[in-house]
């Protein structure tokens, strides 16, 4: 069962364009995290959003958590080639056994063409 759906799966845009990546679920999460992964490396945490409706900005990246804490979006303004990579969203929850776990989406592969 895929709990987190990311869209689009692939995105190829020209340098300077804007883009939005979506992360949707039917489940409620205690928080949602966004990671960026480059080839041959592990994912690197970009941001964690915790409160429904929360908006966080990281330079040209804007992250939003849905009011119901089921979905999130990542908006990149004026994309640059250095933004190229795999963007992963991950929903966090505590299991009944006291285990803290992240469930990952399949990712959005972004290519920014100079």
């Amino acid at each position, binding site marked *: 069962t895929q709990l987190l759906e990311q869209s689009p799966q692939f995105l190829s845009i020209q340098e300077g364009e804007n883009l939005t990546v979506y992360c949707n679920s039917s489940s409620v999460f205690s*928080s949602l*995290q966004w990671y960026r992964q480059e080839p*041959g*490396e*592990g*994912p*690197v*945490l970009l941001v*964690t959003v*915790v409160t429904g409706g929360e908006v966080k900005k990281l330079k040209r990246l804007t992250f939003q958590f849905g009011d119901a804490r089921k979905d999130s979006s990542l908006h990149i303004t004026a994309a640059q080639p250095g933004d190229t990579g795999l963007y*992963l969203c*991950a929903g*966090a929850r505590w*299991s009944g*056994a*006291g*285990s*803290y*776990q*992240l*469930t*990952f*989406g*399949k*990712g959005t592969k972004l290519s920014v063409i100079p």
Partner: protein
Amino acid sequence: GAGVSQSPSNKVTEKGKDVELRCDPISGHTALYWYRQSLGQGLEFLIYFQGNSAPDKSGLPSDRFSAERTGGSVSTLTIQRTQQEDSAVYLCASSDLRERDYGYTFGSGTRLTVV
């Protein structure tokens, strides 16, 4: 250390052989996770260690997979009688659950190829 270290970075093994993958987490991080990343499949949770608690093994795909964490630090993931479908990148992550964002710090992974 400064980051999560995994070894080996690449492993090619013959079908049916056993393999051991190692993870050195960030010093002081009590939580340690193993994930598997296959092409087009995203990250699949395997196992979670938290302090001295019993590990959460709910993600292990079969009894050929096992993991241990010694002294609350280094962890090894063992795959017995490897199969071709075990080929993937195995990622280890650690986390300090006292930090508000609970973010994971990942290692660079071990790329396992079963031939």
